[in-house]
């Protein structure tokens, strides 16, 4: 079975996600926080998924997650700019600029070389941040409470606001990714994966397509990192460590490539599984997580979304 090429009806699933986000608002606060961080991280996994559609595995998506997080953190904690109206665009812009520069280099590479180079670049940032004692090195630093278009919610209402912000931005990110996948540049990603030579022969540059997908994924990941930083109130270099990037790849695999909402939902499922595994087996939670991952890979090689896709056909 081919993976989904047709994203014309995917906005229905974004609507379903919007409904779930609204339902989530009324859940207990710990669960709501879990949904919030899963949505922010899910946006990064969505960036990985977009690249996977072109047959490219980014093992360093944590780079942009971290750039987004540190952009928000530096502006809020060091420069005193605490309004989300400036913070999130700054996170996206910082990720975009770095993405455009690195994209020039990375769009020339494919397969394992692409994976290793993305990994290498993200670990360079990790190394730099660890050496930066003024930024707290591995301890990172805390981010003060943010304001929303000039409005400063009081302490009790802060979680409501940051949840709503995350929900709106993540849904917008999904819609943006959807618009991209439905455009020519997005639809041709599959062609890059299937047969690059034929694509060139038809007059399209695969390099430009890869450059674009890398930049789009960078922006989504930067936004995800910015949201995550606002949610957790703390950033540290772990955000760009390879295990964090590996988790995004894993979630993208777990989710499958069939829908823009799949990575966000899969991230939530993974977080849910993790927190209960921690509760049930504090000494062996990784074992539970690993077994679940293995089971999905063996039983559902096209990811969890293949269950939904199968139900539709």
């Amino acid at each position: 079975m081919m993976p989904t090429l047709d994203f014309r009806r995917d906005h229905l699933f974004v609507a379903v996600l919007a409904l779930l986000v609204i339902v989530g608002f009324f859940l207990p606060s710990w669960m709501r926080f879990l949904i919030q961080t899963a949505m922010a991280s899910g946006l990064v996994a969505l960036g990985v998924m977009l690249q996977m559609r072109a047959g490219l595995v980014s093992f360093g998506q944590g780079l942009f997650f971290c750039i987004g997080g540190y952009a928000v953190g530096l502006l809020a904690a060091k420069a005193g700019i605490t309004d989300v109206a400036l913070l999130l665009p700054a996170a996206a812009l910082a990720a975009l600029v770095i993405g455009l520069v690195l994209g020039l280099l990375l769009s020339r590479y494919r397969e394992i070389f692409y994976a290793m180079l993305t990994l290498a670049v993200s670990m360079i940032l990790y190394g730099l941040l660890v050496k930066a004692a003024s930024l707290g090195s591995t301890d990172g630093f805390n981010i003060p409470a943010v304001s929303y278009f000039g409005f400063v919610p009081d302490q009790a209402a802060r979680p409501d606001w940051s949840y709503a912000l995350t929900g709106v931005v993540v849904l917008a990110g999904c819609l943006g990714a959807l618009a991209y996948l439905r455009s020519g540049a997005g639809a041709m990603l599959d062609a890059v994966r299937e047969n690059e030579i034929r694509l060139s022969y038809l007059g399209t540059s695969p390099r430009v397509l890869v450059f674009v997908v890398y930049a789009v994924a960078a922006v989504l990941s930067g936004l995800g990192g910015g949201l995550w930083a606002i949610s957790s109130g703390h950033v540290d270099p772990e955000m760009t460590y390879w295990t964090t990037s590996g988790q995004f790849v894993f979630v993208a695999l777990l989710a499958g490539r069939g829908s823009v909402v799949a990575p966000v939902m899969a991230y939530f499922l993974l977080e849910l599984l993790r927190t209960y595994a921690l509760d049930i087996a504090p000494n062996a939670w990784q074992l539970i997580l690993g077994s679940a991952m293995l089971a999905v890979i063996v039983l559902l090689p096209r990811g969890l979304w293949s269950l939904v896709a199968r139900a539709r056909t």
Partner: protein
Amino acid sequence: MTLKTVLAGTASLCLIAGAVQAQDQEPITLGIPVFLSGAASGPFGLPQRNAAEVIIAELNAGNLPAPYDTKGINGRMVEANYVDEAADAVQEYRNMAEREGVDAVVGYTSSGNCKAVAPLAEELQQLTVLVDCGTPQIFESVVTDPTYLFRTGPTGTIDSVGAARYLVDTGVDMSEVAGINQNYAWGQDAWADFTGSLIALDTGSDIATEQFPQVFAGQYGAEISALLTSGAKAIHTSFWGGDLEAFILQAAPRGLFARSAVVMTTGEAAMQRLPNEIPEGAIIGARGPYSYFAPESELATWFRDAYEKAHGQPPSYPAWKMAQALLGLKSAWEKAGSDDPAAIAKAFENLEYETPAGTVRMAIGNGHQAVQGIAYGTYKQDADGNPGVENVIAYAAECVNPPNDTTAAAWIEAGFPGASCN
């Protein structure tokens, strides 16, 4: 029936009701985040969990010596809920506070995690006792007006200040000094405090070389060669866990310990594991008056014996820190005499209480940060090959900690104003 009998009857009824109530009370649940996986689980997480198990079981049985000989905490039994600190600290903290509804959180070793959860403790009004974490920033810049957050472990500042003082006081040649520390926040802070202390003590030292290998690198051949050829007479390291053991195993055969005075601020944790490999004369610290450096007391002897009986080996310093956190919570809770978190927090502020490692005073950070003294000594095996220390010098809390209104960095830079050492 006289009035007297009625009164006596009522009083005894009340007593019985009170006793029944005490037994029926819900147990106190503690969320205990410690490293149960990863590189920090062996040297820190496991001794901390083991100590928590011992202290909680013995508290519930009422087996502790005075002043902790009452059962449980404030008459209620204690239950522990262990969580792996290696998972997302913020998420799991929220889960403990909001899903599990624990009465108090007692744990955390990583400074990064302490910084991340510190503002949450105040936001969620969750009674929280940080057990370890080296950074002095918690009450200096992260939470400057604390109510529910406490740290019963002293800051990492005392390790470096104490190490510098010990080297000077034992007459080590300080003309050329070198350091080898892990290249992350802990190692960078420890080395900065140490070199700052040397300036404060006016040793006139030259820094021969400063080595910052990657954390968990495991191989230090090149760095040890650099230290050997640097000609440094005194060497400082804040290595811990597997890195510390690797360093000892690789540096001792090359004669680094014979050529220079090497001070290992966390060396105590390696003594049980490498009793024959640590060269005699190596300078050992325990990040406070713990373990071999603990002042003799009934409580210290009891803790050593109870821990060794339960887990087969003596407790290393992280275990002592966990015991100290739990006993601090018990002291504050019983001083408050109430289960109201705000009342307990109020009672905890500026508290002075007894621990296996002597008296702890919550003296800085507006009464939320503990101060303790520190001791260093040189490694020595006794005739039976048991590890121990000699030439111990203990420094009082006032000698190695900044006063309440000063940050550690500013205090070191200003040359230890207000320090009183005997």
